[in-house]
Structure formats: C-alpha cells, structure tokens
C-alpha cells in the first residue's frame, strides 16, 4: 500500500510534567517528568505499538495526542503539510534562541539596560509565539482553538483500558455509540439508527444490544461497545490505551482479532499502547519502546524481536517468559526497579540498571539515531555493534 508511507500524526518534542507534592505536608510541588521529549510518526493505516513498564509515560503520550492531558511543550501534527511544519519549526528554533538570550539577560543581574533588553526580548518572544500558533493552528492539535479541536476530534478517537469504567451506565448502547454521529450531524434520524446497527454488526454484537445498558454486558462485550463508539465517526486514528489488558486471555484474542479486521475495513491507524510485548508485537507494524518518559528504541516488530539493540529492549525481551516449556529463555534479568520519574538519573535514565553502561552514559543524554534499515535507538554503547 502506497498510502502507508504518508504521515498521519507527527509527534515532535512532546513534553508533559505533572506537579507532585514534595511531601505529604508540604505546599511545594516538584515536577514529575511523565513524558520527556517524545518524537514519533504514525503513518496512515499503520499500527504503532507503544510498550513500556508502568510509569514510563506511554498512556500520557496517548492522552496528550487527544489533549486529554494538556502537554507542556511539543507539537502533534495531524495530516501535516511539510511546508507548514518546516516553517513553524523555524519559529520554534528562533523561540529557543530568544528564550536562552532572555535567560542570559536575567542571569546577568541588574546591570545597565538589562530591563530594557529583557522587555524587548519578551516582546519578540510573544510575537514569535503568536505567529507560530497562527501558522500551526490548522494542523497542530496542540495549537488548535475550540473550533478546530471540535473538527479534529472526528478524526482521532480513543478506546480506553477499563471497560467497566469507560461507558456511561445511564445510557443505552445505541446512545453511547450514536452520540458522536448525532453531535457531528453525520447521520440523522433513521440513518443514524441504521449506522448504529451496522457498527454493532461490525464489532460482533447482536443488534438487540442497542437497547440495553452497559451493565448487561461482559467485559469483552463492553470493550466491543467502546470500539464501536470509537468507530462511529470513521476516524483516521484510534488511540487504544491498553484495550485488552483488563480482559481474559480467550476474550483478549477476540478483541485483537476484531481490531485487526477493522483496520482493513476502515483504513484505520492505531496508536496501540500496552505493557504486554507479545500482544504489541503481534498487532503492530512498528513498535516504540519507552523507558522513563523517553523512547529508547523504535523499529518494526520483526526488527525489535529478532534484533533488539537497546539494552533495555534486550532485557525486556529476556524477562518475558515464553509460552513453550521447551524453550528456556536466556536469563537476562534486570536488577533493581524503575527509578522515580520525579528524580530520574542523570544522563541516560537507564544507566543504573544497564549491563552495558560506559562512563559517558551517566553524563550525556543519548539521542535517537536512525540506522540504515530504519531501526532507531538511543544508546551510547549498544551491545553487539
């Protein structure tokens, strides 16, 4: 498919911090860096998997894409025009420079003309931000105003983790599924009804489900309702936040199959967030591995599984028991716990647990580097070349 190479979503420099209280009685808060500079693209019709242990920021990335959390920094381009992206990138670069100049002036203290200069700089920064926002507004989800957001939400939908909590218990299924099309006016009256029935067929629910309430369904069926709701506006991207982890193994397989077959019917792209690497590897075209708010490795499922290059991915794969008693996995067990994101280690955040660390790991933050086959890692000293 040629359309697979067009970028649908381009996440750049995404950052999100949450304030946490320094201690129970303190009024001070310290920032917890949940997502710390994530860059990733999702192509049309593609499934991008996002894996990592709890607290690595994978859910936050998914929620930031829909602005369910308001990110601090970064841009999320939807259907981007490369010219606009490049232009805004220039403005962002200029902004960084101006900001650092301003910091210098402030650090210089109260010297002659400092006040004048800082005022000038602040003015230029404000102008720069305003122009950048105006230019980015149509395509950057994070710069959009309410009207654009309303339009955007048609294209990006979400399936939530907990099917017991994500459906309104007071609404019947047809209202839950039909609310989106009703609000957007895409289907009205009898046509809306027909569309809901069609969706129920698609997700494998009986048509008489339409007039029942969520509590009458099992976990797997509820997740199907959630998927039908996400599909109702025929979006281009569905963010699936751990859609199968609350389900039983046999039901989990049904939902995975459903998601795969819907992708072909609706030409969907998925951002598939899960902690279970075997599920992610199964459903995804490309997989990004996250550790403490950063992507450490990104590659196709095969690349990641057959040739993992980041030490974290290698030990993650080594930690997963294989469902075959004949295969004894190599014991590559990581020691220690994931460090607290409030106070992450300096340099590469993985270095305290890394079996391959070298001196520079504790000093310099590694950046993502692409190899020729499109396999991306952030590591100073990747094992086996």
């Amino acid at each position: 498919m040629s359309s697979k190479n067009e970028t649908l979503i381009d996440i750049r420099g995404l950052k999100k911090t949450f304030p946490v209280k320094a201690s129970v009685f303190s009024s001070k808060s310290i920032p917890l860096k949940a997502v710390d500079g994530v860059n990733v693209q999702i192509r049309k019709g593609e499934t991008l998997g996002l894996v990592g242990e709890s607290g690595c920021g994978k859910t936050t990335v998914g929620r930031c894409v829909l602005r369910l959390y308001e990110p601090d920094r970064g841009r999320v381009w939807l259907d981007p025009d490369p010219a606009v992206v490049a232009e805004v990138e220039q403005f962002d670069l200029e902004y960084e420079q101006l900001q650092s100049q301003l910091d210098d002036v402030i650090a210089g203290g109260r010297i002659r003309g400092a006040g004048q200069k800082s005022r000038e700089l602040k003015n230029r920064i404000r102008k720069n931000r305003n122009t950048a926002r105006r230019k980015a507004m149509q395509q950057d989800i994070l710069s959009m105003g309410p009207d654009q957001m309303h339009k955007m939400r048609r294209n990006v939908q979400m399936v939530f983790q907990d099917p017991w909590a994500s459906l309104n218990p007071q609404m019947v299924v047809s209202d839950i599924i039909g609310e989106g099309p009703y609000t957007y006016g895409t289907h009205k009256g009898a046509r809306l009804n027909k569309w809901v029935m069609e969706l129920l067929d698609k997700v494998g629910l009986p048509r008489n489900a339409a007039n029942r309430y969520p509590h009458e369904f099992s976990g797997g069926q509820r997740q199907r309702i959630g998927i039908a709701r996400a599909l109702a506006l025929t979006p281009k991207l569905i963010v699936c936040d751990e859609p199968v982890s609350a389900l039983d193994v046999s039901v989990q397989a049904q939902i995975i199959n459903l998601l795969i077959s819907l992708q072909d019917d609706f030409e969907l792209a998925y951002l598939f967030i899960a902690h279970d690497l075997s599920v992610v590897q199964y459903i995804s075209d490309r997989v990004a591995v996250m550790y403490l708010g950063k992507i450490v490795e990104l590659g196709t499922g095969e690349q990641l599984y057959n040739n993992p290059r980041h030490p974290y991915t290698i030990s993650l794969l080594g930690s997963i028991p294989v469902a075959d008693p004949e295969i004894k996995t190599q014991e590559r067990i990581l020691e220690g716990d994931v460090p607290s994101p409030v106070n992450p280690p300096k340099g590469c955040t993985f270095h305290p647990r890394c079996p391959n660390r070298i001196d520079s790991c504790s000093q310099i933050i590694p950046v993502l580097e692409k190899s020729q086959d499109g396999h991306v890692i952030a590591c100073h000293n990747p094992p086996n070349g």
Partner: protein
Amino acid sequence: MDNVLEVKDLATYFFMHDYIIRAVDGVDFTLGRGETLGIVGESGCGKSITSMSMMRLVPDPPGRIISGEISLKGRDILKISEDEMRKVRGNEISMIFQEPMTSLNPVFTIGFQISEVLRLHRDIGKQDAIKEAARLLRMVGMSDPEERVNEYPFQLSGGLRQRAMIAIAMACEPTVMIADEPTTALDVTIQAQILRLMRQLKETKDTSIAFITHDLAVIASFTDRVMVMYAGVAVETSTVHEIFKNPLHPYTQGLLGSVPVLGDRKVNADGSRKLLNAIPGSLPDARRFPRGCRFAPRCPKAMKKCWEAEPAKVEVAPGHQVRCFLHHDEVRVISKRDLGAAGKRVLKNQQKISGKKKGSADGSKTDTPIARN
C-alpha cells in the same frame, strides 16, 4: 515422588440469597515434594477459591466447602478444628497473595509482620524474631535488611513488597506454598526477578508450590505439572510438556491458540493478516452453568452428548487426565452433595421470588462480585 498434598473431589459453593454459585465443583490433584503445580484458568474459573479452600480461608457465610478431602502429609485438614488449623496455616502451608499492597497491613512494619508469623509458630523472643526477619529479608534479596525491617509497606516498591510477602510465606519453611497470581500486578522485569527468586527458594528449601496464574507463559517457564480449570472444574491435568505439546481438551487448545507468541509470523501465505485462534463466546454465568459439559457452549467440537452429560475425569495416558468426551466415554457421576441448611434456605428464597414475579423469570442480570471473581 511422595505426595505431600492430595486434594480429592473438592467442592466449594457460595450460598447467596436466592442462588448458589458452584465456584469449585470437583477438583482433584496431587502435589509431590518439591514439585510445582500450575493452576491455570481465566477469571471466575475457581482457581482462587481452590487456593482459599486449601487454606480454609473461604468466608463462611456465604461460602462453604461442601465436599472433598484435602490431605496434607496424610492428615485431612478439612476435618481438623479451627484451632489446629491455625497451627497449620502459615506453618505447614502458606500463601502468597496477588496484591502485595492490599495483603500487607499498612500500619505495621515489614519486620513486625514477618516476626508475627515466627512468634506464632515458634518459641522465639521478640528481638530474635526481628533478627530472624532481617535474615529472611536478606534471603529474598532485599538490600539493607536491618533497616528494611523498620519500614512500612508504603515505603517499598511493588517488587520489594512482593519479596516481603514471600519472606512471610517462607518464614516457617512450609511444606506447601500457594502462590495466587504472585506476579500479575508486577511489571515484566520485576516479574522475572520474583520468579527467579521463587525458583531458587524452591530448590534450596524443597518446597512444593501450587502456582496459580492466568499467564500461560509463566506456567511454561516455571511449573512441572499443570492443571487447567474452567468454570469450577479441572478439565485437564498433565505435565507441562504434555499440555503445551499435546493438549487434549478443546479449552486447553483454545487457550494456547489465544496467546500471541513473540516473533510469530503475522501474515498468512496469501498476504492477509493472520488472526489468533480465539475461543468464541464468553465465560458462562457462575449461577447457571450449562447442564452437560460446561465448555460445550463455546466448544468448536461439541457433540450432542456434551450438552446432556458431564464427562468424567479419566486418565487417558500416564499422568494425563482429561475431562472430555472426545477422549473417552465415561460420564461423571456426581456424588450427592449435602447442601445443608444453607441450601434449603436458598431453595426457599428461590421459590418465593419465582412465585412473586412470574413472567420475568430471568430476573436481574447484575453480577455479584463473587460471580465475577
């Protein structure tokens, strides 16, 4: 291998207001010395109730062990008094729970909670018990155990809490340890650490472990024998190699087909996306299990017979028992279970309700927590 634990025809029912949940209904297994038995099944299949029955921790009311025999080193622990059971619990048979946060007491230090077990079962002073607790914490791989004994559960991470749980369970060097989903709440890298620790302890102390989980991959890497449960009954029991290589029961086959294996090919020969072999349908309602084989409604190979009678558990190959008519013809004869006064009460309530609202016999469909558990 001599058997340290033998469970025969265990049945645990829950007597609710107007219905009975047959949570465990005929489970038999043995556990040899130093052996690990995996009990695998989906939620609601009765695996946790089986383990709670073994500890005699089923809340009564509403739950009651209706029939069965659980002999620990030749002694039936269902027949002994509660006082005697207290001496067994934690001493000869102990348990690791799933949620290390909710099963540790938040207001006592880790050291206190470990020493409590020791002081209950052994003649040991308070100070010595704390010292012993520190030694146990070192054994489960905690750094600075002398300081950790004074810490509270909230100060520890999930993995460390589970290590503390294991220390409590191992404190009296029990013969049998029941691990009820000990790694489900943990991340994979921490899970690997905990499994390695349990494997080391098992080998050095020769403890028998009943390992309950829904994760087939953990079963494959950790256990010697496997019992697969579905809707309160054990459908297949065999060695771990047999189960994975030659599963006989359609449910076991379906379960194995449902799990994506890392590195599996995702595309068929004709270029279409490969789908998982999912089991259709969902788990039956615990209040009204099907009359015949409980898996029949979801079974791709169900025959007429399956809907009418329940298959017996038959040993079809040495050490390989299966409960399915595809492999034998024996019908299960359920011994008459004495439901007692609680059963009569439920029956009376049932009649009262069905008399009251005729027509809407189906009743409400809300799940009780126990039906889902």
